[in-house]
């Protein structure tokens, strides 16, 4: 493998591992409010103090100061150095959804706090929220992609292989789906649902809606590919030897579209993560206090927050990083598998 590929795969695997074990990498619970620290800026990591350089980094706690007559400014309390500890005990969480544990990768002695990305308006640790929010956003993207590709490839193969009126009617349906103004459609759907939905139900609703709306494009791509390959010599030969439709689909056509599906998957995941972010941004996604990148960004709808507290853009940066990694993956698939893509 080329070194570029290795780096890419490592980065992607690392990203997903961190999100999967968010509880371990995040120093705090994502929903715990610290009302003494609203909009605290990111903690600075120090190596140097008056006594010189330290190998072990340390931080200072934020203390709130009055700036003129105005609350909400912070300065470092340099009276006490808080060395950064690793593998510390903290709030309990479920690792991989199963083991209840309290070990976190890093932290400082309470009541000091290490806030890598600062805090939001309720004093919740933004870094922990980005990790836990990423769990929901990325999982939504992957699940929705899976739903879209599964539905899309089933309908695409059927349409492409059988042709004629089946093809025409199925492709007619995809056109309908492609022309749907989906944001307004979702806003409409939300009005008919009960006031409160649990996080799990919202998540599945969100992913299935994104996936079911998104199946049309992959379906058309798969159909085109199947259409062109069903009259290839090896397919005709297989049919001549008495191969059943199912055999031909499984043995000859499915491998043909696999490359396309992989490329599509890598392209669709970031797009659907962005779709989840958009929906949550408009309040259609998971509700407070559970974080997702979208609902975290929705506080930035307020002008004063946007211009005053830059660190709250962290979820957007995470989204950009994820998207870049996935599109590089799509590029890699595309060049390696020499297959079709959008």
């Amino acid at each position, binding site marked *: 493998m080329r070194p570029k590929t290795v780096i890419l795969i490592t980065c992607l695997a690392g990203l997903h591992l961190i999100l999967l074990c968010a509880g371990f990498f995040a120093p705090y619970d994502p929903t715990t409010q610290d009302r003494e620290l609203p909009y605290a800026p990111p903690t600075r990591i120090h190596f140097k103090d008056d006594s010189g350089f330290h190998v072990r980094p340390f931080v200072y706690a934020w203390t709130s100061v009055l700036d003129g007559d105005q609350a909400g400014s912070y300065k470092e309390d340099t009276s006490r150095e808080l060395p950064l500890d690793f593998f510390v005990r903290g709030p309990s969480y479920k690792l991989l959804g199963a083991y209840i544990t309290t070990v976190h990768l890093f932290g400082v002695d309470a009541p000091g706090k290490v806030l890598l990305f600062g805090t939001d308006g*309720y004093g919740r640790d933004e870094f922990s929220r980005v990790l836990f929010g990423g769990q929901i956003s990325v999982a939504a993207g992957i699940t929705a992609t899976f739903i879209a590709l599964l539905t899309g490839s089933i309908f695409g193969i059927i349409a492409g292989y059988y042709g004629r009126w089946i093809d025409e009617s199925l492709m007619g349906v995809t056109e309908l789906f492609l022309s749907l103004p989906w944001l307004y459609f979702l806003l409409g759907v939300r009005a008919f649902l009960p006031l409160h939905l649990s996080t799990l139900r919202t998540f599945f609703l969100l992913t299935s809606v994104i996936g079911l709306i998104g199946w049309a494009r992959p379906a058309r791509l798969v159909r085109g590919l199947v259409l062109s390959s069903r009259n290839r010599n090896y397919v005709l030969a297989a049919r001549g030897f008495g191969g059943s439709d199912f055999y031909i689909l499984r043995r000859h056509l499915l491998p043909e579209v696999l490359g396309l599906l992989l490329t599509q998957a890598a392209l669709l995941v970031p797009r659907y993560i962005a779709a989840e972010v958009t929906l949550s941004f408009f309040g259609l996604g998971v509700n407070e206090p559970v974080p997702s990148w979208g609902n975290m960004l929705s506080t930035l709808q307020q002008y*004063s*927050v946007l211009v*005053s507290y830059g660190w709250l853009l962290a979820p957007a940066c995470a989204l950009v990083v994820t998207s870049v990694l996935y599109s590089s993956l799509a590029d890699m698939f595309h060049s390696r598998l020499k297959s079709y893509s959008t």
Partner: protein
Amino acid sequence: MKLIARLTLHVCLLTGACFAAAPVPDAAKPGEELARLAEVSGHYGGHLTIGERAEPKTLNPVTATDAVSREVIGRLMGDLIEINRSTQQTEPALAKSWKISPDGRTFTLQLRKGIRFSDGHPFDADDVVFSFNVYMDEAIDSPQRDLLIIDGKPILVTELDQYTVRFALPRPYAAAERLFDGLAMMPKHLLEKPYREGHFIQAWSLNAQAAEVAGLGPFRLKQYVPGQRIAVERNPYYWKVDRENQRLPYLDELVFLFVGTEDAQVMRFEAGETDIVSRLSSENYNLLSREKSRLGSQLADMGPSLEYNFLLFNLNDLNGKKLDEVAGKQAWFRDLKFRQAISAAVDRDSIVRLVYGARGTALWGNVGPGNKLWINPNIPHPQRSVETARQLLKSAGYSWNQSGQLLDTAGRPVEFSIITSSSNSQRMKMATLLQDDLSHLGMQVHVVPLEFRAMIDRVFQSFDYDAAIMGLGGGDADPNPEMNVWAFAGTSHLWHLGETKPASDWERELDQLMQQQMVTLDYTKRKQLYDRAQQLIADNLPFVFLGTPNILASASARVGNFHPAVIDPYTLWNADELYIRDPARENAGVR
């Protein structure tokens, strides 16, 4: 040389086209009874621009209900008696004086003589009688009509002579003179025809020609550009003069730009495109105060507003509505101890700090410290105590399961949702704080942001909600506008709308107190009644009161006589006194 002269001429013509010469203030006529503001000074000229969150819906003072329309109309119209926003007391306006009969039922108003509408037509008692007839007309259904119909009977308005009008009330009515504030006196000569022909409601729409609209306010309509702005120019016949007997207003023109949102208002203000912003949130206020040195603006924190924000439980009668789930939860909400527990668990200090950025005040009752005349200082302000809350719940038969979840007497987990308007970031934030506070009691609370109209519809019509965070008040310091909240048949009796009789003894007593204070003329006695009403409200918690924001406003440095008030309209109430500062003149000691 010639070229320069021609260029200058061109420039003059161009600017002239943009701001056609404003009408010159008319010289005072003999016999014209003008109001002299002995404290006010300034100088003529210039225009101010104000960003509005929306476009006004109409210029018709009788049918206008939205804040923006009322803000614009208020500058065009005059009223008989007005509430001075800075003293909160009534002052003579178009009526130069008034007499109240000893039984408090008859008001005799003396109108100013010789004053004219903005089109130059004289104003007299005919216009007053006409205006009141329109306001009280059932067919027109003005929002102010409710205030003028007392005990189902309209106020009797009689013209005694050209400048004297008598108002006969069906029963004594406390502070009745405050009713006159905001009731626009309309020109009979312009509006009688549409009124007689039955299309008064369509009159003075935004499409009206400037010549069709006339009032007694400091300004008159100049131009309306749909989707962009509405410009009003000086009323040359306005009836107030300043210290030097110069006819007000000072400004040539006032322009209302339609910018959309509070954030857009702030951005336009920062960019120097507008001169005044009011109703600022604390975040935006802090943002502007950080930029104060760059913008050179004037910032005003006027202290607590009269608004009260609260958590409301749905105690409506749900018989005949298919809302079994909500009805099941009402057993908790009806329990006073449950509501007291919630009130005890709410961290109001955090609300003030996190929601209002310390520019607000915690509330335990419906009257806050902004209302100095009427607040009952004896309402207790208990500290937040989760322990007290737990004790209260325990004594009411609630218990906790292994995982700390609160269970009611039937063993059901306590779980409910709070709806709030998604466009109001402050109330959204309160809801999220409340959610966390109540989780310490083992209650599972969901925050559901809804579009404003959808929320209003649930609270007023369908009753399909558990709890809501809302805000009320802010119109006037007097208790009378609160009647529709606390009288059991009131239209804003939110926790239990459409009651045919009081649901409990305290509601009956509250209703009686409110009715009684309305007919008591003596302030001290009225205050005693209203104190008791506040006590009842605080004891029985139909609302769990949370907090009130400060009134925050800002104006650019060039605005003179900028004195915001805590009563709506916060900044433009003295639009006639505002002027553009001219540093050169002020340095020379000339005003």
